[in-house]
């Protein structure tokens, strides 16, 4: 079994998610090579062949061109699997590759059981085993599903790849998250509001419990998208990653992107009317109750302690 791992590079740095791909190959007992549009001044610590294209020439985001560079590396390496992170870079590039290769493409893989990729479905309430009908396969891996046991080490054997393919889109730069707002990563207690709060007025009861516990309040993506809370309060992949002493998830079903941002919290309490909500997977305690009754009652008891 041979894998080609597609590493990622952003803002002048190799992304750590690249090493999750190495962990995946190790877990599978597969041979690996790596592909990167990056720089020889920031090489991955990795023992193996690295197909390297110069980011100075080809840019950090340039799908049509990265596609051709990667296809050239694939032609040289002939891997059984081409493996990406399921990230804004990976899910954008992977379909372009699977179509060009005319092969099966399985997204957001969380496990491989007897050679068969396992993926989540329906907001992680269900699992799906996906059987490829082609020998070669393209995979994207869910962030955090495959972790390296040891610190990465080694130095790669670099093989340069080049192309004269024309770009289809123009990358004009990055925009940082707005400064200001609250830094949740420093809070010892976070009480977060999810879609289950129902209406913006109910954010006040979440805030009150956070205050009673001397913490901050956070929010899940739908709450922020609805403008009920500021983006700086958002916990999850596209918001902040937090690991407080106590995380209280109120009316949060537990989308993968949210779990990725809070599952390292020391103690997790979830309050949800749905006993089967995926948040239950990571919660130390799941309170099956209507948060609109439970949260104010809890705040009052704590304030009276």
């Amino acid at each position, binding site marked *: 079994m041979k894998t080609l791992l597609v590493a990622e590079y952003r803002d002048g740095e190799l992304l750590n998610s690249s090493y999750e791909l190495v962990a995946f190959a190790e877990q599978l007992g597969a041979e690996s090579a790596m592909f990167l549009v990056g720089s020889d001044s920031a090489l991955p610590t990795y023992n193996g062949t690295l197909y390297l294209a110069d980011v100075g020439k080809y840019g950090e985001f340039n799908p049509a061109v990265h596609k051709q560079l990667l296809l050239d590396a694939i032609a040289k390496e002939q891997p059984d699997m081409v493996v990406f992170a399921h990230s804004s870079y990976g899910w954008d590039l992977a379909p372009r590759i699977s*179509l060009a290769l005319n092969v099966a493409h399985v997204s957001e893989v969380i496990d491989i059981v007897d050679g068969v990729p396992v993926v989540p479905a329906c907001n992680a309430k269900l699992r799906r085993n996906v*059987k490829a009908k082609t020998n070669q396969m393209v995979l994207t891996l869910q962030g955090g599903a495959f972790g390296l046991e040891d610190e990465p080490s080694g130095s790669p054997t670099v093989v340069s790849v080049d192309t004269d393919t024309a770009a289809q889109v123009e990358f004009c730069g*990055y925009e940082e998250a707005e400064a200001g707002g609250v830094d949740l990563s420093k809070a010892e207690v976070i009480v977060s509001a999810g879609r289950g709060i129902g209406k913006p007025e109910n954010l006040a009861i979440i805030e009150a419990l956070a205050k009673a516990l001397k913490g901050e309040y956070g929010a899940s993506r739908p709450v922020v*998208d609805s403008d009920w809370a500021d983006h700086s309060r958002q916990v999850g992949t596209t918001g902040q990653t937090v690991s407080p002493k*106590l995380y209280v998830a109120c009316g949060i079903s537990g989308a993968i992107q949210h779990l990725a941002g809070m599952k390292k919290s020391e103690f997790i309490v979830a309050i949800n009317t749905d006993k089967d909500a995926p948040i*239950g997977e990571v919660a130390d305690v799941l309170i099956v109750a209507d948060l609109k009754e439970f949260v104010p009652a809890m705040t009052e008891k704590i304030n009276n302690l």
Partner: protein
Amino acid sequence: MKILVCIKQVPDMESRFKLNSESNWYEGTDLAWRMNEYDEYAVEQAVQLKGQVGDADLTVLSIGPDRVKEMMKKALAMGCDRGAHIADDDYFKKDPFEIASVIAEFAKDQGFDLIFTGMQSQDRGSGQVGVLVAEMLDLPSITTIVDFAFDGGQITVKRELEGGIKSVIKATAPALVTCQLGLNTPRYPTLPNIMKAKRKELLSIPISDLLKVEGKQETAKMYFPEKKGGGLVLEGDVADLTDRLIKILKDKTAVLA
């Protein structure tokens, strides 16, 4: 200007799911169906673009059984001009490659200037179909957009990356974009527009007219994840629950010390 928006009908994710008799998908009966959340943003952006350029014709497309027409009527009430329903009772057995091939086959000779899709569906979540359609039609595609502007054939979008960072990308129409949550505020159809939508064209096309490829993968098995256990599940009276949680927090954490 011609615009296409592709939408999917999915179950409400709060539903209590059951497996079908073959255990290769969830059972479709007894579920509340709605428009895939990501696609609501796609429809809204397409309607806004039509409003901006004035002279535009906006087609909404969906693949699925007859019930998807209810959701398509909502898209028509939001402002789409016509609907193309690709009729398929076995839609859940089609892989992203087949679905994209059907859409590309429908779109190929129609000269759409802009195609909008959601970035992924809430049930399957592959996130592949939009990009595949664009690749099949040889169009540029930009995924996961949270901001969209159109000016004289030039598109400027922001892509959402990890950790709150966005990238700014420009492309020239014709092009395809896949829409992320929060891109805009999807409108609620008004009653007059719901009435008007009833008179709009909603054509059904059998999928066999458009499907000319074979899938590359299939769902071998669908199942519920094993409960990891460990977590304590508490139910009952609220006053009792608060007492029990306070005791647990005192025993297991230092936050009430």
